[in-house]
């Protein structure tokens, strides 16, 4: 698993474990005293439209009484008996500083849909149902989502927020030579940066493919690797891929479709078909290749991003 997914997963887990019962429980609890009669309890249920209540003596929770207990009392003609004699004592409770996850587990274990919540001194402070947990989680997720949206919005408005006569964002990546497994990691980050800055799929794709071709050239043809520098401006992207590798002996020839000097093992992987530079040409709005045998290679690429006025329909194409 990669950094990115780990972050995503742990964020959600954190959320679930972070959510305390006191964050989601209902605080206004209708209670009844043990000294009340069952008849009074019946009136309470009717008036408050509830189906049960915790029984409280002073601050302390001493039991719970339900509609079921009331029906039994009615059947037995014991409506004048006290709640204290009909209630269930030894109630399962939750602590207010427990996590919502613990509450869910206890609900599942005992099969109750409702738990009185007490603080560590045993004082009744609230009541919790499954619905409360669900609502709390959804609310929290929504807040998180909104924060994420705000972050994204901020990234995409960096060029409006930071004022200068000409603002650029420069990203630099080091690419290792012959490290086939890591090949493409820089391009992936470049593509994601473009997307995060608000570039739509078409421009992100063009930049991504061209950067990837250039990056794979560094991986395949150099031993020491090279550097990729990306300069992003609101209306254009510029990429320089530079290495101190073997150099290209004949640039004309290198640009011919199908011409390749890639070794066999690279070809077996499906690369080195002699189309990379051509594809880069196709994806960019301009490219320049300089190379000196034994000195190194410089590949420059430009991408225009059309201004909003001239292409109102292609909003996704804009940075």
């Amino acid at each position, binding site marked *: 698993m990669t950094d990115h997914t780990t972050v995503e*997963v742990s964020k959600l887990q954190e959320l679930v474990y972070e959510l305390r019962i006191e964050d989601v429980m209902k605080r206004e609890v209708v209670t009844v005293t043990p000294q009340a009669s069952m008849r009074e309890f019946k009136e309470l249920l009717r008036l408050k439209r509830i189906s049960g209540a915790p029984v409280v003596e002073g601050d302390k929770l001493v039991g719970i009484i339900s509609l079921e207990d009331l029906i039994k009392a009615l059947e037995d003609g014991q409506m004048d008996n006290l709640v204290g004699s009909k209630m269930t004592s030894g109630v399962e409770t939750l602590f207010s500083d427990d996590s919502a996850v613990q509450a869910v587990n206890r609900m599942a274990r005992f099969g109750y849909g409702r738990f009185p919540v007490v603080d560590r001194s045993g004082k009744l402070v609230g009541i919790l149902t499954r619905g409360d947990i669900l609502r709390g989680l959804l609310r929290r997720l929504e807040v998180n989502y909104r924060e994420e949206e705000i972050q994204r919005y901020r990234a995409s408005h960096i060029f409006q927020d930071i004022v200068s006569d000409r603002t650029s964002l420069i990203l630099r990546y080091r690419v290792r030579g012959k490290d*086939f497994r890591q*090949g493409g990691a820089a391009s*992936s980050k470049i593509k994601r940066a473009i997307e995060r800055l608000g570039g739509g799929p078409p421009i992100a794709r063009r930049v991504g493919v061209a*950067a990837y071709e250039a990056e794979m050239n560094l991986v395949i043809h150099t031993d020491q690797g090279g550097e990729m520098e990306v300069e992003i401006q609101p209306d254009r992207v510029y990429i320089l891929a530079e290495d101190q590798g073997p150099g290209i002996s004949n640039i004309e020839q290198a640009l011919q479709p199908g011409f390749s000097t890639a070794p066999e093992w690279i070809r077996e992987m499906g690369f080195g078909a002699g*189309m*990379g530079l051509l*594809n880069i040409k*196709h994806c960019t709005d301009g490219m320049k290749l300089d190379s000196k045998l034994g000195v190194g290679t410089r590949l420059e690429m430009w991408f225009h991003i059309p201004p909003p006025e001239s292409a109102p329909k292609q909003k996704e194409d804009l940075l």
Partner: protein
Amino acid sequence: MDLKTVLKVLEGKVISLPPGLSPAADLDLYELEFSYGGAADLMSDVLAFARPDSLLLTGLTHPQVVRTAEMAGILAIVFVRGKHPPPETAALAAEVGIPLLGTRYKMYEACGRLYAAGLPGTGFPDLYSLPVGMGK
């Protein structure tokens, strides 16, 4: 064509899913919609000719296949001939959000079945002009 249909046509299976597309959220997965299909063992060709929103069929299983798909905007990859990718390929696919599928059909038949079932290709390549007399 949606992913559910692809799996049915190829008598295929899901090899790995990105975290967001867990089996619990399989509805989203099956609703993944492909506009085109493409097949290649040459990643250079995929980079040059693939269209976004397409499905890629390939016999290669190394991680660069996933990188290629990511760059080209490919939505999902099908490994043909019953090939199974190594863990690092599945890990990268999970990271970049690309589902991996598998079929026991060979490349030719897998493509033929999908094409016959209505998943179109992308016509002639537009990367460079073909030699005179070869269309376009």
